């Protein structure tokens, strides 16, 4: 059963004020950071959003939990539509999903103790048991931190410990979905594994669904069930993780996978497959937006924009000449 359904979601950021827009007669005074994105996420599964910086994956995550108002589109969670931010239903709807923010230490207020940090959501939502200290201890135990960590401040934590506090805080309201934005960024490889194993254990114990936002493809392969690849705010490929890794259909996915350095000196690549860089959102290439970097681009790619279409059950790609 699908837990989260996103239909044609678009998020725009204004790039100029009203006066300048009028004076320059600009028709579109915005950039589309997320453009017409649709996907669904199933209960107790992990869905990964991958892409390079500026591809709109974080903006999408933030729009889902209501930190950024979407310009258009529909978000349904557990079968019910997203209520207005000012309505009384908002908090009830919102507390079913939680976010783990990107920077493990920077996302924790430096003036609050770990105990206050993880029980703050309970106070805001007026939820949970009366004894919030006991609840904080339970949450610390859940993420594998000693209970005396409750009185520490964020600067007294290592990166991995701060990440665990982030997990505990995300879980405080018993959400059904956790949006994890780059949960392993800035962590050493040995600690990365610990955090991912913890998230996996919690998924099994609590039946959580994860929306994993990351550019770290090796971990996506291990932890996610399905993935979507974003480029300039659009989905260019979606499908089951195993299939996409085995046979990527979109040339961008192929290039991303090929760009991963392989920790084996025998498998050195002699060339970089994708040249150039991601174009600006203000200046989207016409037709297929990837044709400027695509090694397989043909004339049609410069003239006709490809639609996201199904190439196999559960697999979609936005390419005239899919590789798989």
């Amino acid at each position, binding site marked *: 059963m699908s837990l989260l359904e996103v239909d044609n979601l678009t998020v725009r950021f204004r790039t100029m004020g009203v006066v300048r827009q009028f004076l320059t007669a600009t028709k579109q005074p915005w950039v589309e950071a997320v453009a017409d994105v649709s996907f669904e996420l199933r209960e107790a599964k992990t869905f990964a959003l991958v892409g390079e910086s500026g591809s709109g994956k974080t903006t999408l995550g933030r729009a889902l939990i209501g930190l950024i108002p979407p310009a258009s589109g529909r978000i349904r969670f557990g079968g019910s539509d997203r209520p207005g931010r000012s309505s009384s239903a908002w908090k009830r709807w919102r507390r079913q999903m939680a976010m783990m923010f990107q920077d493990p230490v920077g996302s924790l207020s430096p003036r609050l103790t770990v105990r206050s940090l993880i029980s703050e959501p309970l106070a805001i939502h007026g939820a949970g048991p009366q004894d919030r200290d006991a609840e904080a201890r339970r949450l610390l135990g859940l993420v594998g931190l000693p209970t005396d960590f409750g009185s520490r401040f964020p600067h007294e934590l290592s990166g991995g410990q701060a990440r665990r506090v982030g997990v505990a805080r995300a879980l405080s309201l018993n959400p059904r979905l956790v949006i994890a934005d780059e949960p392993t960024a800035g962590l050493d490889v040995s600690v990365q594994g610990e955090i991912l*194993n913890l998230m996996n254990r919690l998924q099994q114990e609590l039946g959580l669904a994860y929306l994993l936002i990351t550019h770290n493809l090796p971990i996506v392969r*291990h932890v996610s069930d399905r993935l979507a690849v974003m480029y300039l705010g659009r989905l260019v490929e979606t499908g089951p993780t195993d299939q996409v890794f085995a046979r990527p259909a979109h040339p961008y996915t192929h290039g991303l996978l090929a760009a991963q350095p392989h920790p084996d000196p025998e498998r050195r690549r002699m060339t970089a497959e994708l040249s150039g*860089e991601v174009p600006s959102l203000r200046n989207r290439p016409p037709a297929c937006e990837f044709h400027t970097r695509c090694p397989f681009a043909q004339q049609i790619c410069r003239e006709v924009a490809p639609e996201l279409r199904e190439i196999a059950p559960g697999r979609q790609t936005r390419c005239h000449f899919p590789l798989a």
Partner: protein
Amino acid sequence: MSEPSPTILQISDLSVAYATPRGAVRALAHVDLTVPRGEIVGIVGESGCGKTTLISAVLRLLAGNATVTSGSILFNGRDVLAMNGTELRRLRGGGIAMVFQDPMTALNPVLSIGTQMVDVQFRERRSTAQKRRAAAAMLKRVGIPDAESRLDDYPHQFSGGMRQRIAIAMALLTNPSLLIADEPTTALDVTMEAQIIHLLRELKQEFAGSILFISHNLGLIAELCDRVTVMYAGEVVETGPVEALFHYPGHPYTQALLRCDPARVEQKTVELPTIPGEVPNLLSPPSGCVFTDRCPIAIDRCRVTVPPPIALGPGHAARCIRIPENVAA
């Protein structure tokens, strides 16, 4: 100048301690490192292992509370630790150039990159016009389109990947014999990272220089380096040619590090390998082997004996007393 020595950089027995209110922190202990001329040497290790302290020591840029307690650093056969101000100015930028992790903070935001690239050539007796031409040629070499017209642009007008290319171009303008690259791709996306690594490899061929490449990413080390040094808690635990080190790692820490890299776990798994335990507190470093507390094969003797380097092959050595049993197993 004396005739060039076959090793461009030779660090022997280097120890560095930081004075802190809570006591002396032993940041580096008896570090040996050799960079042969024309090779790319990688240093890999997790945060806090002393990578940055090591390169700061090489450039004599250590913080005020740091003291070198033992050892020597020979650059081109000359002792860096004994250099005076004039010699150091010649060393920094001239003999050794550096590419930092974050190109935005390494470049001056209020000067055009042309100005900055002319400035770094202050040693050359050339006209400014010639220096600008040299700068444009170098920008073109590192893959910046319309190099000449972009000299007047400021750092914020370039993307992250372009800025790092500019930083590399600036470093190479002085024709250094050693380039130190400190995590040069951490701030970049994978497709850009692959391009930068490719560029570094090409440039090394062209300029016949040596590169000291610092990273925590094993994939990049495997991709680029000829030799690798693995550091843990301020010590060199293993050093060797890149193939030997990746295929026959001798030290339990190197083995664990390689096992942990999700890119090396071939079978899809939900239980990723980790290294249990934590890095030792360097305020009171352990008396024996630094890795004992997290080592799966540690024995009582590991706690008391400081392990000597044990040879595993040509140029390949690891500091572990359990090597005979461990490698045979």
